[in-house]
């Protein structure tokens, strides 16, 4: 069964006075299967962020539908939406978005606390997630005391501690140095192997080259997609790079 099914998504923004119309998404369709690791690439203004906002149910499409595990997102009531997001979706952001008033431990536990879990349950999950992510020695630290890479790892822990159906990542390597980027991408590969579905939006060819599949978006449409197949990271990197060159040259669909 398809885990995520996006059909003919269209999003039109209207300026406040109703004059100008901007079409951010024209018609986007794709699907993601359970356990996949998909990267979405595109230039600034190509509609990536709009797409991710709609997938995260933070925004509503003008037309089309998004189904997660067969359930249409537009059928989830507004009041239940936050809980739905909390239980089914995990987020990793470019700017980490950790709360500076919490220790890393409390930051990671936040979604569970909001979900009203018992403290014993929380500790059990925290333990297993943080062991996997190598965060155990850092739990009592505050965000300002740790490096960017460590912050992002904590953010990943926060995202997956609820066992979400899908992990949505928005430019997760955008604020990291190359070393931390490698680390994080390795981590993503690792949690994907353990069965976590990941959907990542990124600019970075390097980040995308770690995924199993890459979707290219241009002018509000899925323009092209690449499967890794049996290619190595380096080969895949080359293919993505070539595709981007073609895209930038304004070529037609390959």
């Amino acid at each position: 069964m398809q885990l995520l099914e996006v059909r003919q998504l269209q999003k039109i923004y209207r300026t406040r006075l109703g004059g100008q119309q901007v079409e951010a998404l024209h018609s986007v369709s794709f699907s993601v299967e359970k356990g996949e690791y998909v990267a979405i690439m595109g230039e600034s203004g190509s509609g990536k962020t709009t797409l991710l906002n709609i997938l995260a149910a933070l925004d509503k499409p003008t037309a089309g539908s998004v189904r997660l595990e067969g359930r249409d997102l537009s059928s989830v009531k507004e009041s239940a939406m936050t809980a739905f997001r909390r239980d089914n979706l995990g987020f990793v952001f470019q700017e980490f978005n950790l709360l500076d008033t919490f220790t890393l431990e409390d930051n990671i536990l936040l979604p569970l606390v909001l979900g009203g879990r018992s403290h014993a349950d929380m500790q059990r999950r925290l333990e297993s997630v943080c062991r996997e992510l190598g965060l155990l020695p850092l739990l009592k630290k505050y965000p300002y005391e740790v490096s960017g890479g460590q912050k992002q790892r904590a953010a990943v822990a926060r995202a997956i501690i609820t066992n979400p159906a899908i992990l949505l990542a928005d430019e997760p390597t955008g604020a990291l140095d190359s070393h931390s980027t490698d680390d994080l991408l390795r981590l993503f590969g690792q949690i994907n192997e353990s069965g976590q579905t990941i959907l990542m939006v990124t600019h970075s060819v390097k980040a995308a080259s770690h995924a199993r599949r890459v979707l290219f978006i241009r002018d509000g449409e899925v323009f092209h997609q690449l499967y890794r197949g049996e290619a190595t990271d380096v080969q895949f990197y080359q293919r993505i790079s070539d595709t981007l060159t073609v895209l930038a040259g304004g070529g037609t669909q390959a």
Partner: protein
Amino acid sequence: MKTGLYFRLAQTGIRRSRRTYLPYFFTCVGMTAMFYIIASLASSPSLTDMAGGRTLSSILGFGTFVMALFAVIFLFYTNSFLIRRRKKEFGLYNILGMSKKHIAFVLLWETLITYVASLTGGLFFGILLSKAAELCLVNLTRGTVRYDLSVSPFAISMTAVLFGAVFFLILLSGLWQIRLNNPVALLRSENAGEKPPRANYLLGVGGAVLLAAAYWMAITVADPIQAITEFFVAVMLVIVATFLLFIAGSVMLCRLLQKNKAYYYRPAHFVSVSSMAFRMKRNGAGLASICILATMVLVTLTGSGCLYFGVEDSLRTRYPTEFVITAQFDGTDALEDTESISMLEGALDRALARAGCEAKNRIALHRVVYPTLSAESLLTGQPEKAPTEDRFFRLHLIPLADYAALAGSETLSEHELLLYSDGRPYPADTIVLGGETFSVKRVLDSFPLAEEADDRNPIPTLYLVVGGRGRCGALAQADYLERVRQGRADPERDGGVNGDWVCAFDTGASSQTQAALTEELRESLGSLDDAFSASIISRAANRSEFLTLYGGLFFLGLLLSIAFSCATVLIIYYKQLSEGLEDQARFDIMKKVGMTARDIRKSVNSQMLTVFFLPLAAAVLHLCFAFPMLHQLLQLFDLKNLPLLLTTAGICVGGFALLYVLVYRSTSNAYFRIVSGAKDRI
């Protein structure tokens, strides 16, 4: 040309941050106006014309000082808030190629603009409102109104100099801050990573101990003299304790709550407890200031208001009967000078008749008044002690006949006496007087005219009733001579033993009639023989003086309360503003992580309520514990009316709480407006 640039930069700088600058500017104007008003009133000619105007001017002079001190502290405080926000702008200038010297010029211009603008505005409103303030003052003291508008050049120059100095200091501190920072730090100063608050148990517990000590001092205070000496100590303790508790104690409490996992890891507590710890660390000082300002408003208003509204009570306590006439004779022989006494009574009756009133509750008695030197050892027949170890008494001897006429018949044998001590311990059950030993037959519960005496005098008075007028005088004389012989008394210095005739009565007449009667009495008694000197104490004649004093104090209390309240409002406003800006980002994250907007609002609301009303609650608590002390202090002003004190305090608390709630509502709206500006995107 270059100067023009700096001026323009300063101007746009002010204009761009008007959300923070405007309240600061208003504060400056308000402070200037308030200072001018007090300073001009203190030197106002119409004030010095009033009865007791001297006292009033010195009260207002003191007020000028308090106001100046407050203006310095407060403007510094608000300005430090502004500078913090402006650092980023200065950092940008620095990176764009302005040296620190150039930034200093911008800052100089800014300060100058603020100074000139606030001085102009402040003096404008000050002069405009000073007449209103004067009318209010005159009305409070029930003086006569003058309707000319006066401008006091002296007060203007004083205001200009004081605020010039304040702004100069503010400029210096601003320059100092800029010197200290490098441009990148300046740019980032607003969101420099903040260390998590640590619970400082030492400070927290220290604060609690200090507060307990201060409260203990306040509730165990026994008499007015002790209240005076301990009041300022207690105030200092409370101020220090409040700061310690708000800064360290609150963080400590949050940390303790966090350690309780079952409590902490609940949706309702998780976010609020941890962000409260941060908020308290950052705002502890601000909250403590609000609390102390609020306490000051409440105590000042309660004290001065109670004094003013209880003026009739004070008068009644200080002057229980409307008129007291004392005729002091030389020597004690006059105790039997019935001729002079009947002359006095005749004059009194004539004056009463002329003023058209009738004496009610008229009482009169003879007494022998000892100078204030009678020592305990002599009264008890003990061997002499050094004067420093001996207790001193004032001694009144009253003939039995006079006492019996007022209090009912009583018999005394030759060596018996009746004793009344004004509430303080008396030396012994036997008293040695003029070489004879008397046993105390009975200790009296009350004594006629004892209340008329000034019981604020720290030296206690002993009233002794002894049989026979002649014997009363003879005993006193014998005793006094013995003391002179011992070198314990000196008629040249203390005036020796005198005989008095005291008469007290009420009239129940209007205050005009009473004033007329006072004049009549002065006239008719003054024209009598000089075998004695007569003095008249009239409640009515003292009323205007009381009103001037208490009205002046109340007026000053009102003005200072307004100033303190304005300060409170401003601190609250800045607090909400800065917290709103800080919380904006936090809100954004919480939404993304899965908190509904309603949840956030609920959590923030409860936090804000706690943080906001904590200072008010603490202030009311402080006031409650200040009560025993206030009560004692007011007794110094002859005010013993506890219900009045409670009512005044209740009204003050109610009024202030209302103001506080209004401010809370309007500023919390500003807060939510800022926070809901948080963007709704991933």
